[in-house]
């Protein structure tokens, strides 16, 4: 199954978290990739996902953006 991608770059707080939680609701298997561009969003998404029982991995791209991978 393809990963779900949530592109939350450029959105202000708390929209990246809300988008992530809405993707988590639809999640069945595989992983969810959340794209964010600030450290605040990165931290908030990670905290919310971990509270929902997901493991998180974070990759930084060259432009200083973050790719947060959520998996069970």
């Amino acid at each position, binding site marked *: 199954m393809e990963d779900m*991608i*949530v*592109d939350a770059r*450029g*959105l202000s707080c708390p*929209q990246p978290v809300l988008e992530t*939680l809405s993707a988590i609701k639809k999640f069945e298997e595989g992983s969810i990739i959340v794209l964010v561009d600030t*450290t605040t969003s990165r931290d908030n998404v990670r905290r*919310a996902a971990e509270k929902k029982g997901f493991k998180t991995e974070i990759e930084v791209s060259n432009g200083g953006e973050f790719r947060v991978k959520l998996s069970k």
Partner: protein
Amino acid sequence: MTKFFSSKPGIVISGAVIGLVAVLLQKFGNPANMGVCVACFERDIAGALGLHRNAAVQYIRPEIIGFVLGAMASALIFREFKPRGGSSPLVRFFLGMFAMIGALVFLGCPWRALLRLSAGDGNAISGILGLFSGVVAGSIFLKKGYSLGKSVKTSYAGGLVFPIFMIALFLFLIFRVSFGEGAPIFFSETGPGSIFAPVLISLGAGLLIGFLAQRSRFCTMGAVRDVVLIKDWHLMSGVTALVLTALVTNIILKQFHAGFVLQPVSHSSHVWNFLGMALAGLAFALAGGCPGRQLFLSGEGDQDAGVFIAGMIVGAGFSHNFLLASSPDKLSEAGTILVGGPGLFGKYAVIMGLLFCLFVGFTMKSLKIKKGE
């Protein structure tokens, strides 16, 4: 270090330090129950610049300058300085303007509401309940898909504009620049604007708070919003630490006076305390952060936050020019209490602001986010 500040102890320590520093600023000379008040201090800056002519509230507050520059220093050190903007700037400007009008009807921002509470001012309670209601309303809009749209990366220089404005203000302050006879920069000779801690102490306190808050993402509005929306108590634990530390420090420094009567720069028109802060809370929620947080974001290069603050400063000008801001309760010469409250047109302005926020909340929606690619 980044991990520490995003942890629970990190946010609790940040909140506690802010509470302690704010109360100490009063000991060092800031007005009573106004160790740090973003709305009041931006109002004083608006006055100093001549955007309003209320002679009692004119001073360039170094705390505000410190907030922005401290946050900027932290963002630069930890590579979090990201120039960005373009997310509905005009709407943010008006949200800032109405947030200030609401805050000046209550007589304080969320930070001062908490500090007033921790000093025993019971009138803060109706304001805090209003703030809570406004943030809850904003959170409902967010849940229903409200959004001001995405910001985009901008040039590095764009991110420097607001911090440079702060440096210019600091130069105006220390050189006491005058642009002519009877012209700004104004400095109050009486009233709250004439009461302040030494410049370097205020600036140092601002820099410390700005640095810590940028690291920990401290936000008084976000605290309520996160509890309501996602049952996340992280930011709220910082806010609780602020109140408890300020309470204990006020008791130790004998600055705690419980009651509703004649509290410093405070009025007991509870309906308007409630509605003023409901307006401010809703505007903060729709704009994504409390006024302190907006200052820290502007230090990170977020120009939308800078536009919100510009709106607040203009809102402060309007508040005093158009007789919107409240006056505090006073003791008459005969010894009776004169209850204060909104200025002549303040009530209408609050209602207009609430209507504006509802219009924004109902009409601004998120662009569809791509999924499953």
